[in-house]
């Protein structure tokens, strides 16, 4: 018979106020295998832990049960405690008599009875626990960062500066993300390019960073410490080595100024050969294969003008996709967001009137490199009456976005300020739901723009309508309790941030979960905001949820520090609580292979049985429950252990 020690915690008064702890000790002591049983005010404190260690040695215990809070809180603590006393940590069992008993029951007598049952069931399980040993696997000291916005840039630089190699994969021809589109940033009104481009250049020059732009991650296999990555480099039809970025080709292109520029939100024009913006990194030209006359029709006038003017012979019409493969130990997902599609709110007539525009479009109007050269002109005219509408696509269940986008209140304040600066006699009204100016210096900025003469009217816009060539916005001033309408030359929609559809594939490749808002789910909303439940995969920036640039950069550095933490280890130890296949019983039906959410099962062709990849298995148990021949055993959660535990509570 196993020798078991049981320790009951009062958790201050959290448990003992409802559960009669002494009574539990009395009942549990009666179990023959329990050779030591005691209670203590705080089991997790140093004296509490010492008590357990002493009891292990004095009573030669085989297993230990602590009845206290949730194992999510202190299982790691007590596993370490028993380890210190020479016991295998997997011979420790925790009974939750706080969250699952004292906190949820009022009747002390019944709660005490339930606590006794819970502890008894833990003792039954503890007597069947077996020692398990973690396998060490070596770590590849390199990282993959997906997405080259400010989040990916910051993470890459931090990891690279710690001495580890980084592969930075960006889908677009240049890194920079959304921030590269802004003229100024709130609340300090820093010039976005002045603070972003130095970092972009650092990325390009860093000896530890390999920049893969215009590229996509095709597949990711393996697991923490040892991911195998395959990246597709899309053909640019320009030789990256030869192109000097002089831009003669773009000027010469027959389609120059005739194709809507994605970077300018369709407001500006580019040619078929282009760079998204003048400070692009890398400053290398790209031919748009969907538009280029030569690539589409095999003919561009008498000869392609770009090739004619290029002095370095960089145009390469026969360019093909290239594939690169490499191994990394850790991955950071920094795939950012997509601006809310304003046409989903038909009452704001975004589709209908050119002088109804989105926040991101207005950013391009401000930008010196933008479609109007930084002049605030809408349809060639300076707008005088301007209305901003907040929360477009945020806090809006109608379009499925229940969340607040956290940046629109402030970017509206910034944009209103910039317009006022450029058009001093403009009459600017902000229609808002609630004002959220929570960041450092934000409330002060909100006050400042009101002093500058921006009118804030509480109550959001109900509709935009046009009449006789004029544009009107209707709303209620909720502080006055009066409906009103304003004529406007320009209506700016404070569009929110939504999950990036370009990141869906990455989420699937990595088996990442989404939170209810559609952004990637972190491992814990408070304590593990940069981790995911997949070991070795981290999140940075808006990919995890809406945030401004300061928060994005902070999280990006946080993700980098977790990556560095992981890469600095020679070996990592995976949890041994995984599925094990009984090769004699397995018939190779592959049911498990279809079910496993982590693709941890492989078929061993030679033996005709399944194999579990220990590094991929998360111990979820789906396979064990489904296996028709019952040949999968879950370490630490064997059928015997679970049934013994259940019998005590039934």
């Amino acid at each position, binding site marked *: 018979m196993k020798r078991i020690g049981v320790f009951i915690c009062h958790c201050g008064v959290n448990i003992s106020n409802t559960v009669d702890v002494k009574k539990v000790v009395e009942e549990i002591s009666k179990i023959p295998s329990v050779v030591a049983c005691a209670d203590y005010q705080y089991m997790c404190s140093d004296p509490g832990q010492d008590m357990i260690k002493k009891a292990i040695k004095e009573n030669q215990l085989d297993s230990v049960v602590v009845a206290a809070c949730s194992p999510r809180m202190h299982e790691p603590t007590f596993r370490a405690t028993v380890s210190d006393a020479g016991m295998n940590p997997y011979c420790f069992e925790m009974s939750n008599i706080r969250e699952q008993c004292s906190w949820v029951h009022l009747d002390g007598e019944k709660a005490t009875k339930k606590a006794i049952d819970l502890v008894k069931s833990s003792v039954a399980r503890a007597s069947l626990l077996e020692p398990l040993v973690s396998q060490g696997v070596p770590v590849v000291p390199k990282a993959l960062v997906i997405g080259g916005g400010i989040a990916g840039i910051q993470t890459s630089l931090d990891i690279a500066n710690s001495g580890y190699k980084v592969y930075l994969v960006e889908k677009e021809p240049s890194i920079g993300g959304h921030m590269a589109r802004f003229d100024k940033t709130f609340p300090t009104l820093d010039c976005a390019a002045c603070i972003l481009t130095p970092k972009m250049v650092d990325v390009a020059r860093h000896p530890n960073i390999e920049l893969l732009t215009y590229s996509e991650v095709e597949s990711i296999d393996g697991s923490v410490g040892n991911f195998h990555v395959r990246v597709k480099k899309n053909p640019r039809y320009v030789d990256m080595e030869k192109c000097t970025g002089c831009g003669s080709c773009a000027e010469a292109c027959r389609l120059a100024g005739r194709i809507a520029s994605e970077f300018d939100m369709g407001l500006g024009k580019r040619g078929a050969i282009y760079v998204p913006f003048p400070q692009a990194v890398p400053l290398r030209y790209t031919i748009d294969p969907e538009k280029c006359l030569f690539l589409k029709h095999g003919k561009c006038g008498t000869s392609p003008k770009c090739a004619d003017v290029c002095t370095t012979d960089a145009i390469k019409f026969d360019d093909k996709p290239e594939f690169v493969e490499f191994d990394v130990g850790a991955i950071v997902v920094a795939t950012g967001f997509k601006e809310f599609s304003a046409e989903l709110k038909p009452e704001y007539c975004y589709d209908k009137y050119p002088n109804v525009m989105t926040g991101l479009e207005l950013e391009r109007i401000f930008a010196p490199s933008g479609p109007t050269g930084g002049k605030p002109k809408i349809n060639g005219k300076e707008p005088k009456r301007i209305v901003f509408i907040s*929360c477009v696509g945020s*806090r*809006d269940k109608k379009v499925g976005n229940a969340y607040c986008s956290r940046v629109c209140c402030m970017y509206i304040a910034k944009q209103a300020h910039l317009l006022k600066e450029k058009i001093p006699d403009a009459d600017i009204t902000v229609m808002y739901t609630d004002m959220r100016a929570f960041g450092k210096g934000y409330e002060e900025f909100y006050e400042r723009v009101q002093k500058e003469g921006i009118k804030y009217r509480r109550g*959001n816009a*109900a509709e935009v309508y046009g009449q006789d060539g004029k544009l009107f916005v209707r*709303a*209620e*001033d909720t502080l006055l309790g009066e*409906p009103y309408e304003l004529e406007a030359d320009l209506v700016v929609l404070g569009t929110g941030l939504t999950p990036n559809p370009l990141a869906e594939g990455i989420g699937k490749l990595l088996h990442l979960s989404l939170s209810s808002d559609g952004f990637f789910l972190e491992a814990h909303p408070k304590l593990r905001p940069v981790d995911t439940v997949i070991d070795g995969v981290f999140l940075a920036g808006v990919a995890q949820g809406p945030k401004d640039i300061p928060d994005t950069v902070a999280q990006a550095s946080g993700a980098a520090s977790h990556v560095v933490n992981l890469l600095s280890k020679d070996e990592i130890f995976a949890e041994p609580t995984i599925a094990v296949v009984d090769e004699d019983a397995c018939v190779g039906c592959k049911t498990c292979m279809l079910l496993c959410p982590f693709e941890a099962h492989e078929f061993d062709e030679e033996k005709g049985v399944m194999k579990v990849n220990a590094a991929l298995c998360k111990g979820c148990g789906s396979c064990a429950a489904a296996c028709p021949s019952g040949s999968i055993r879950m370490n630490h959660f064997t059928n015997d252990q679970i049934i013994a535990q259940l019998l005590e509570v039934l």
Partner: protein
Amino acid sequence: MGKSVKEILIDGNGYACIQCGRCTGSCPSGRECSLRTRKLIHMARMGMDVIKTEELWDCTTCFTCQERCPKEVKTTDMIIELRNLAVEEGYFPTMSDVPKIIIKSLYDTGAGQPLSPEVSKIRAIIGLKKEAYDVSTNAETLKKFQRLLDGLEITKKGGLR
């Protein structure tokens, strides 16, 4: 017994309201009168006497507000339910006698909104019978209908009995 104000708020998702005012701003009726849809929700939530307000009866139940509300508050449904509660508690609008007029007309003629001579003319033009095909054109059926109404609380509260 019908629902309480609180139950109406819960069923109508009224506690989700963020007082953004998009309902009032959308309300075609509120442009002409003192109806402030948002304010009705606020009053209901604050435990004020929302069922005694006259504005409750200014809504034309066009549903524009409910269609636009970003928080899926069932504004119009709630207004209808609040009216039911108001009648149950004996609060008919005093300023506007419209509901009473409608009930009386329903009782007397069988139609809440009897055909006006203008409408009858239009009906004739498009080839319909001048009168409607309902209880209002059949004296015997109308009597039976009135007997049915006599059994209802609403005719009493509307001051007919």
